[in-house]
């Protein structure tokens, strides 16, 4: 899940960030700017917030670029009881749940609770969204 991820270590919680899956939805920045601030270096500062607040914020990350490891005995990320697929207008499929992605050979490439899947065909990180739909002016209704 956290392959190729960079770890920002905190006293009570470590934050793992997989840059290739980040599509800059900025849910983290909006929810908890003290910790997630893309104008600061490093942009993640886990000791500026509580582990509970950081975990709750990361649950909102729609791409699955952010994950965490609790060091304080707090709960791990819950697997949603229901699987949902949200069709984003002119954008990706946001999948949430107990999600396994496998390739055509049957090999597992990801197991996660949050994934953004490319639906414009232009991503350089298929099957994951990398925001190429913006540059390619992908148009598709959300239904």
């Amino acid at each position: 899940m956290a392959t190729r991820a960079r770890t920002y270590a905190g006293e009570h919680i470590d934050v793992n960030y997989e840059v290739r899956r980040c599509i800059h939805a900025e849910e983290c920045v909006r929810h908890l700017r003290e910790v997630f601030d893309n104008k600061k270096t490093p942009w993640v500062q886990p000791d500026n917030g509580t582990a509970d607040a950081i975990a709750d914020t990361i649950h909102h990350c729609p791409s699955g670029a952010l994950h965490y490891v609790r060091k304080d005995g707090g709960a791990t990320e819950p697997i949603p009881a229901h699987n949902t697929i949200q069709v984003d207008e002119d954008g990706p499929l946001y999948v949430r749940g107990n999600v396994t992605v496998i390739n055509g050979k049957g090999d597992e490439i990801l197991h996660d609770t949050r994934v953004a899947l490319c639906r414009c065909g232009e991503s350089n990180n298929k099957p994951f969204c990398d925001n190429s739909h913006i540059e390619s002016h992908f148009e598709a209704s959300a239904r």
Partner: protein
Amino acid sequence: MKEPQTGLTLKGEGGLTIIVGTNDSYEIKGPFTILNDAGDAVFQAEEEWFCRCGHSSNKPF
């Protein structure tokens, strides 16, 4: 992203498998609910094929 708001009883109880076929669509298996942009439940399915080339005339399928 908000939780689904409609009266549909959401199905869960089981994992979702997304098969990414070479040069092919996403085959999605497992109980799931499709949400619109606003986060409202639109319909439920157990198996569906989603376009990933961007050229379907019946997007998102």
